[in-house]
């Protein structure tokens, strides 16, 4: 059973193609990452999923049915542009949004209180939103998206602007929701969070998909061609080395991707000859690297 399916979806604004021939589907209970650089068409894609705009062509199916608006009551959406009614009290605001999602006032009130307790802001229920700190407002926005117990949760840059403590709090909530069998879609350009949470991803650039599939498979496809080297001495050997496909110097260590066909043992020997090796580790490429590579390729 698929929570959402996009089939050859296309959206243009005037001459500008925001989304082009995009297809992907998310199984129920999966955590999915929609990735892409700024302006890739992530938000445009999400806006089509929740009916703010309609695709020019292609089809969107939700909960195994063609898209229709009443389905949206089962969807929770945290937009990238955060916004709340500034003059409204926290509790009233949550109840209002809950009611718009089809809840009755009583259960909305009760759920709002429960969630605020869970996220440690129960003492702010009667405060106006404008009196709260940015982080607290984020939490309320988060609750607003989850209050009505949606089956499909869409989060556009959910961790943006959160301090580590709150980010981890929210991450725990997300994991809990995943356990409950909810389908979650993350849209982000921050790869570290995706790597920790997502089962599968779709990378889009300039509106078109450039890489998609299960995260494990993608990583396996890129193989263990990556090596982290920590050494004392001159790093000049990295330049013009036929064994090195590409490298990235992080200061404390260097991450090297082998040239196609190169042997890691040869490189180890070479490094050992020229410097003192503290660490030499074969590893999976990070998602960020894959991202930079595929996006860089399509840009070139």
């Amino acid at each position, binding site marked *: 059973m698929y929570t959402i399916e996009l089939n050859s979806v296309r959206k243009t604004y005037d001459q500008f193609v925001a989304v082009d021939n995009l297809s992907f589907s998310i199984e129920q209970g999966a955590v999915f990452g929609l990735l892409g650089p700024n302006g890739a068409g992530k938000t445009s894609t999400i806006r089509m999923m929740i009916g703010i705009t309609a695709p020019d062509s292609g089809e969107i199916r939700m909960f195994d049915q063609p898209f229709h608006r009443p389905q949206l009551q089962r*969807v929770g959406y945290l937009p990238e542009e955060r916004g709340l009614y500034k003059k*409204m009290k926290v509790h009233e605001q949550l109840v209002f949004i809950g009611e718009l*999602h089809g809840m009755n006032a009583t259960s909305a009130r009760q759920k709002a209180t429960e969630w605020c307790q869970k996220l440690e802001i129960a003492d702010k229920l009667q405060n106006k939103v404008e009196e709260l700190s940015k982080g607290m407002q984020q939490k309320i926005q988060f609750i*607003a*998206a989850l209050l009505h117990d949606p089956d499909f949760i869409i989060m556009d840059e959910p961790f943006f602007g959160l301090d580590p403590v709150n980010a981890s709090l929210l991450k725990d909530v997300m994991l809990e929701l995943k356990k409950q069998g909810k389908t979650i879609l993350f849209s982000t350009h921050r790869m570290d969070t995706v790597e920790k949470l997502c089962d599968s991803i779709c990378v889009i650039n300039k509106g078109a998909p450039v890489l998609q599939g299960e995260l494990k498979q993608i990583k396996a496809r890129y193989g263990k061609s990556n090596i982290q080297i920590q050494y004392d001495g001159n790093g000049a050997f990295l330049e013009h080395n036929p064994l090195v496909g590409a490298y990235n110097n992080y200061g404390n260590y260097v991450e090297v991707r082998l040239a196609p066909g190169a042997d890691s043992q040869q490189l180890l020997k070479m490094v050992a000859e020229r410097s003192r090796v503290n660490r030499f580790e074969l590893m999976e490429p990070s998602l960020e690297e894959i991202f930079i590579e595929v996006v860089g390729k399509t840009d070139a």
Partner: protein
Amino acid sequence: MRNIFLIARREYLERVRTKSFLIMTILIPLMMAGFLLGPSLLMNPMSHGAKHLVIVASHPQTAETIRQELTKAQGEQNKQIADSKKNTLKRTAETPSELTVDVDTNTSADERAALSQKVRNKQLDGVIWATDEALAAEKIPFITRDTSSFIQNATIGLGVDRALHREALKAKGLSDQEIDSVLKRLDVDPQDPAGTGSGNPQITFVVSFIMVMILYMSVLLYGINVMRAILDEKTSRIMEVMLSVSRPNEMMAGKILGVGAVGLTQIAIWIGTAVVMMGGNLVASGEQLKGVITWQMLLAFAVYYLLGFALYSTVYAAIGAMVNSEQEAQQLQFLAVLPLAASLGIMFNVIQFPNSTIAVWASIFPFTSPLIMFSRIAVQIPSLWQIGLSLAVMIATIVGMVLLCGRIYRVGILMYGKKPTLPEIIKWLRYA
């Protein structure tokens, strides 16, 4: 439908609870009172306490007659003021004033210069130069500091005119009694063809004017409130959350209904307070209001308020959706205010001549019809086909505007940052 109700309810409660609602509810009636009483306070002829005039004439008798006429005119005016004090409808701040008139027979140029100097030094308020030469020239100089206060000057002119008529008739040998009956003023009482009296035209005018002003201010005020509500939603970026649960048309409808209900509440408070405060007075003035405030008028007020508000609020909703800040909205708001201001501009004409061509067409043109058709109904009920046509045209326009503005709204609310150009807005209308 549930969403429209929820959005309208939130909008209503949020607005009614604010301090500004309270302040406006109190302030607007005060402003209205100031608007109505202010000019009459300022323009009231010869009511600024004591006045001191000098009449210069070649013959003492001429000067004396003028003096008597002016004093008599002032006496009548004072009596009128005293009467109107009992009248709850025209309660003005006028006070009876004393008029001192001196007579002078020195017609030399030196005397004129000396008196002019006194007027300039505010020792005198005016000099009437009714010498034989002036009479022969049929132009009597009135030396005053307030050359532009035409009502005061017209009153004095009338007094002098009557005095000179009296003099002329006396010279023909008529007795004072005969002269009085000749100079007696007659009133013309306008009646419509049905034979009923017109009531009190002055009160009709004041009442329709007040109601038109209330209509004008509420439509404008609440239209702007709709625009603000949408701007607020745009700047607080809550739009996207709202859009994921409701359609743009539902949001627009909810906002318009919510803000409109606030307007109705406010008007209800005003009317309620007025009824309570006037209490007994209302019974007293009931006789005067009879035939002025009719049920047709109240019905028309309600209908034209609701339709006018619906029409203008859709325009304001579209403006709110198009722009990013109030400053940007200023220029576009002008377009919305223009027809309303134009309606006010021709309203005096319409009340005077409710069946003139311009009045008929302005009462059918949808953007002016709320004010103009209402004032026509208030003065004299126009033919039913005109009312029907104006309602039909207005409802059709509202439907059209809702569809049109709904489209602008739907696209505009998600456009941040840049103010759209006209071609862009036209393009928005074409988006499916």
